[in-house]
């Protein structure tokens, strides 16, 4: 199929093109408690093409483009019609000219694992995690995929790489005054039964806490300690402010050499983009354009050092492209989590969903599990909400303990002052 598509792209009259082939082979297991609800498997191929059409008006050069999804089940006529249609449409897209990735050829090394064995061990870890005092795994879904990707373009680029992706969704429940639950999704590269067993064990402990939680009281503006997944979403705001497209689209206002933080006291943020993190779900040696991703310092001590982004938007900003990295790393702070807890605060580990608005800086969520601490006593709470604006916080402290969470490696907890808490 790939040859047919390339032949058609070359014959289409487009100035240039890019083509991505993805082959996915996955196995999926859906549990209700410790019983199998349904099993699934998937073997699919995807082709995503972009055609480029260049034109000029006076001395200005423009590059139109149109992207299309091509099924391997298209016949020759359908393929020709789809590509010709995209070339025609691209002629109406008037964007400033930008380059596409230069030619190189590389098949990135890939370490194969005994997937069957690892899946077996992971299934055992899920089933064996079923009992724990008053808490249990209500249901879970395990997706394990092997993905091969090849990216080519009309400049002569031809690169390929493979990766594993493991996704586990777990719902844990606990009995109490009324039954409660917590939701979790855990993303890894290879299915690691030990990490998954530990994750479920931690979740069971936390849902037990929720089963004895009281309603979140009405609190004045005490500090909020975010722990776990909400930390990633809070810190992603700074990552996104430094993105080349966000800057070009005028959503971000940050400038090189200037602070990305507000007037808050406490820790300064240092942040890197990284192509790959060990055993992370996300990550590839190249981005969607086939551009080699450079791991790079983006924010240093709270100041913007570099924008990061793909070849197009970096060109528009007149900066060196880094590639559109999928992972980011934030440097730890000085205090331990325990030290951050040494003052009255509300700690939140689970929101219904974390809403962090990359445009306005608005942040908030309904509290599923948190703890109100007065410095001596720590009481689990649930309900109510935390809201605020990241640009208006008055203090931030990062923990020195770090962890991997999806596409993020960095502090496990952050202590923030300046958020509002709504409770009963």
């Amino acid at each position, binding site marked *: 199929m790939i040859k047919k598509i390339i032949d058609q792209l070359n014959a289409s009259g487009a100035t240039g093109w890019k083509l991505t082939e993805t082959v996915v082979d996955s196995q999926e297991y859906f549990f209700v408690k410790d019983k199998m609800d349904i*099993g699934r*498997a998937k073997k699919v191929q995807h082709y995503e093409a972009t055609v480029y059409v260049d034109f000029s008006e006076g001395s200005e050069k423009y590059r139109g483009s149109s992207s299309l999804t091509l099924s391997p*089940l*298209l016949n020759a006529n359908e393929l020709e019609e789809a590509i010709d249609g995209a070339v025609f449409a691209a002629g*109406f897209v008037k964007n400033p000219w930008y380059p596409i990735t230069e030619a190189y050829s590389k098949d990135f090394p890939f370490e194969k694992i005994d997937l069957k064995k690892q899946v077996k061990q992971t299934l055992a870890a899920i089933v064996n995690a079923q009992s724990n005092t008053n808490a249990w795994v209500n*249901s879970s879904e395990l997706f394990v995929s092997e993905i091969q990707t090849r990216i080519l373009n009309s400049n002569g680029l031809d690169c390929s790489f493979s990766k594993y992706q493991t996704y586990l969704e777990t719902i844990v429940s606990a009995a109490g005054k009324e*039954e409660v639950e917590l939701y979790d999704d855990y993303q890894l590269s290879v299915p690691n039964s030990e990490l998954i067993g530990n994750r479920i064990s931690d979740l069971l402990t936390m849902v037990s806490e929720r089963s004895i939680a009281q309603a979140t009281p009405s609190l004045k503006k005490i500090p909020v300690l975010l722990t776990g997944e909400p930390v990633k979403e809070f810190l992603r705001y700074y990552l996104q402010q430094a993105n080349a497209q966000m800057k070009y689209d005028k959503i971000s206002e940050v400038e090189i050499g200037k602070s990305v933080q507000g007037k808050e006291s406490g820790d300064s943020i240092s942040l890197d983009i990284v192509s790959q993190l060990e055993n992370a779900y996300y990550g590839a040696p190249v981005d969607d354009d086939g551009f080699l991703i450079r791991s790079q310092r983006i924010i240093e001590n709270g100041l913007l050092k570099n924008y990061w982004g793909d070849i197009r938007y970096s060109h528009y900003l007149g900066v060196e492209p880094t590639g559109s990295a999928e992972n980011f790393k934030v440097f730890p702070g000085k205090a331990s989590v325990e030290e951050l807890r040494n003052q009255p605060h509300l700690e939140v580990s689970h929101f219904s969903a974390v*809403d962090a608005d990359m445009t306005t800086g608005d942040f908030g969520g309904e509290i599923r599990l948190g703890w109100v601490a007065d410095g001596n006593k720590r009481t689990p709470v649930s309900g109510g909400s935390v809201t605020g604006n990241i640009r208006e916080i008055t203090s931030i402290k990062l923990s020195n303990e770090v962890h991997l969470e999806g596409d993020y490696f960095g502090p496990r907890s952050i202590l923030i002052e300046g958020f509002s808490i*709504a409770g009963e």
Partner: protein
Amino acid sequence: MKTGQSVFLEAKRSLLKELISNLESDFPYVSVLGTDVKGKQYNVMTTGVKINDSMWSERGFVLRLHDGKGYFEFSFNTIEGDSVEELYQEIKERAMMFRELTKSQKIQQVSAPIPDEKEESVNFEDEVNLALDHQTPGEIIERLTGMKNLAHELSDEVINVMALMENVQVHKLFLSGKKELCQSYIWSQGYLYVLARRDNKTKYSIKGFSGLKGLEILDEMDGHINELVNNALLLLSAEKIEPGVYDVICSPSVSGLIAHEAFGHGVEMDMFVKGRAKAVEYLNKPVASELVSMHDGAAGVREVSSYAFDDEGTLASDTLVIEKGILKRGISDICSASILKTQPTGNGKRESFERKAYARMTNTYFSPGSDKLEDMIASIDYGFLLEDYYSGMEDPKNWGIQCLIAYGKEIKNGQFTGKIVSPVMMTGYVPSLLKSISMVSDDFELSGTGACGKGHKEFAKVSAGGPYIKAKARLG
């Protein structure tokens, strides 16, 4: 104009029937869903233009079989030549490997009965006013560009604008031993987005348009830019809300969000099977004020999740979930209905042919009442009219609500004061909110932009809406 059937799916029909027939010699139940979905998205921003295929575009198959113990599915999008023999062998091998693996790990199977299907045949073709090729890509981009330019002309504080339209033509074919169903329909959606900045404050307003429509959706988008620009400028002067419990009037879009997030997810009956739904304890009991009736269904209304049959081959229906405040029933896919011994309601939906079917909402809404909006506003001593939303999140087990609402208009002594609060987080306990509903307007609006997830994945098209409702809610 008729939407037309898929030539591709028709061409594969006999091969798929042969595949089903071959597998039926090994397995007691086999079905196939074939999808052929084509869509285009046109996006004009101040900073650039894009024309892409819709993310909903796909062509492929999912085969479902029951091996006597339980279900197994295989998703694929290649068929070598005109023979299904290779595919037949691969599916059989994968199903047996799955069963061997669960056996070796001593994993028991959820007992789901083999489907007992009736003979059914459907050939459904919908209609739209304007075909998708009624205008060229250039003409479409020109119209969207006109909307973008107008926003900039209206205010220097507007710094970026997006005018986006997406059209998706859906074709599906469902085949099993007893069913032969095919359908074709077109849905479209549009967004207008205006980003405004004053000093260091940035705010945006957004409005969606949707329906079982063709290019006529562009006509609906025309004429709304003024409203969007005014809203964005208004938000620049918005204040923060003082956390507390208030009298509120929810606009139809916010009512829809409550119907969908606060209640709809909790009556998806796969949640009943898992013991994740608090709704089970409340069947035939009051959960809302007597003024509240709530529906979900792919039949009955025309929006983006209206269809003739679902992704498991169950015909669409209209389910009355809450009747005058009493919870009557949930919505289900085939698997959960068979385990719970209820009738499937035509709510078995997949994100794509590559994903599992779950019990999912379709078009979910509160029925209109008899109150007038102006009377509702006049009845409030102090409170807010809540308009538009950014997001929401379900909590089927504990009936918590999280709705992130775009803004609230302050009401004092029955009149708007001109003060705006933004954003507004609505939280609380679902029955408390629904039981507090004291007035329901005679308006009715549905909206189906965006996508709904189950947990944090499995995105599917849905719509939600209803009338204006007056209630008491905790805002923060």
